[in-house]
């Protein structure tokens, strides 16, 4: 269970929150001018980052407010919590560098 620090309410259990997917996906300036492919990519294509990932969360059982979070998808370490509309903060060098996964764990040989 993650312990997430809501910017309004303080640390709460993960079960009080809802995940909102990747953050900082801007709505297209002119949606009507997009090709079907570009529109589909805006709608459905998201990064699948291994490491630090910016994502949106909603504190649905508490203050019902959205916020952004930088979370490490490998270690689940929460690096930053920042308000909606704010730019992604710079991350330190604590990000684990993915080096040559010779034989990934659980891979079928």
């Amino acid at each position, binding site marked *: 269970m993650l312990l997430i620090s809501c910017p*309004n309410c303080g640390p709460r259990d993960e079960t009080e929150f809802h995940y909102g997917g990747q953050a900082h996906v801007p709505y297209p300036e002119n949606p009507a001018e997009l090709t079907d492919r570009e529109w589909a990519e805006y709608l459905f294509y998201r990064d699948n980052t291994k490491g630090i990932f910016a994502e949106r969360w909603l504190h649905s059982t*508490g203050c*019902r*407010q959205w916020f952004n979070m930088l979370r490490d998808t490998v270690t689940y370490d929460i690096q930053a919590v920042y308000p909606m509309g704010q730019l992604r903060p710079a991350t330190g060098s604590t990000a684990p560098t993915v080096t040559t996964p010779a034989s990934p764990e659980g891979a079928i040989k």
Partner: protein
Amino acid sequence: MADTAALENSKKIQTLRKSPASHLGAAFETGSVAGVVELREVAFLTMAGLRVDPAGEAGERLGALTGGLPAVSGEVRSGGDTAVLWLGPAEFLLVAPAESHESLGGSLPRTLIEALGDGQGQVVDLSANRTTLELSGPQARAVLEKGCALDLHPRVLKPGTAVSTAIGGIPAILWKTSEETYRILPRASFAEFLGRWLLDAMREFATPEVP
């Protein structure tokens, strides 16, 4: 006067209404352990949902009536017999005694709606949205700790604090009104579940502690 007649009629109707946990009243009485942990329903409290920017002009007008609007999570502002609970940065819940409702001769939430006027915001009568369960006694904290992940230690959760959280897996507002008294405000449809959940959690305290 027509108003008086309407009020009399409205009071007559009030005797017919049932609170969400009224059918559990007897179970609450038998399940309560006097002096250890007790549970009862405080029915029909007047509640109003306020959505307004507390720093704005409309927020100030509402705040003047309610003794101010809370500013941070957990804060409760009291003015007379009303209390305003913080639910979000621009969302509050006003709780007042049942008699304060306009259908029983009180003035809520009409005075709030009038105070808001054309201002940006919203005042909605939510008296039927939630019911109030009151859990009290020295073991009340031990009962709640079985299903609430918050730190309920008195060092952290002080009397006069209300937080919106999950209790027994359902969303509810937990309001600590005094050192050993908690008011739990679940939505009406969760009242039966939470009432029975609390009864189950209280059961161990009816028998002497096994050392």
